[in-house]
């Protein structure tokens, strides 16, 4: 058994990865050329927000929004046009709510990183309504 395969099986036994992930990793090891071409590296293009009523609340509102990630990125960059006074007010309001965020410190690189990380974002909230936020 080679070293990489042993590591994958160790991670599986420790519960760090699921059986499906282990299978995918092992198949990638066994034929790197083939998997290299078949791995889906498609980047997400849209942020989806879906709100659906629960089965008990069939008359509830339904919302289905698809926003291009590029538009979000452009919108975030527009934050730099907010006048400094207004930015200070926003920062103060956020601090009052207990959110430690400083609009003045957001740089274009941070915005790029933020949008890139949205790929991994998945939010599922179930209550009276089911709310799903994800990228596709």
């Amino acid at each position, binding site marked *: 058994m080679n070293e990489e395969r042993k590591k994958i099986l160790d991670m599986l036994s420790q519960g760090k990865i699921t059986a499906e992930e282990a299978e995918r990793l092992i198949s990638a090891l066994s034929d790197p050329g083939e998997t290299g071409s078949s791995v889906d590296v498609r980047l997400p293009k849209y942020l989806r927000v879906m709100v659906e009523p629960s089965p008990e609340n069939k008359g509830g509102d339904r919302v289905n*929004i698809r926003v291009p990630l590029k538009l979000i990125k452009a919108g975030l960059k527009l934050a730099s046009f907010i006048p400094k006074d207004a930015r200070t007010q926003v920062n103060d309001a956020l601090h009052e709510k207990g959110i430690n965020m400083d609009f003045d410190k957001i740089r274009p690189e941070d915005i790029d990183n933020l949008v890139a990380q949205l790929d991994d974002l998945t939010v599922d909230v179930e209550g009276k309504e089911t709310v799903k936020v994800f990228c596709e």
Partner: protein
Amino acid sequence: MIPLLLQLRIKPKEHRGFSIWLPFFLFWLIVLPLILAAGPFVLLAALMMSKDGRGKIVLNGYKAIFVVIFCMSGLKVDVQAKDAVIFFNLI
């Protein structure tokens, strides 16, 4: 890509509502030349404001208009509330 078509559907409660496809490219045919024609004036304004540091903001704002226009394609909003249905899709 620039959005070329707008699919719009509005249906208020107890009304028939309407559903239309708008040729958005016609809108751009009018608006884009206007935005481009404003370019030299924006540049002039930016030069005049460069002394107090606001010139860069003006130029970035002008650039942002194009960025937003070109990123709008694919935007879809579908809201089905109790009293109205609103749907729009930029294609």
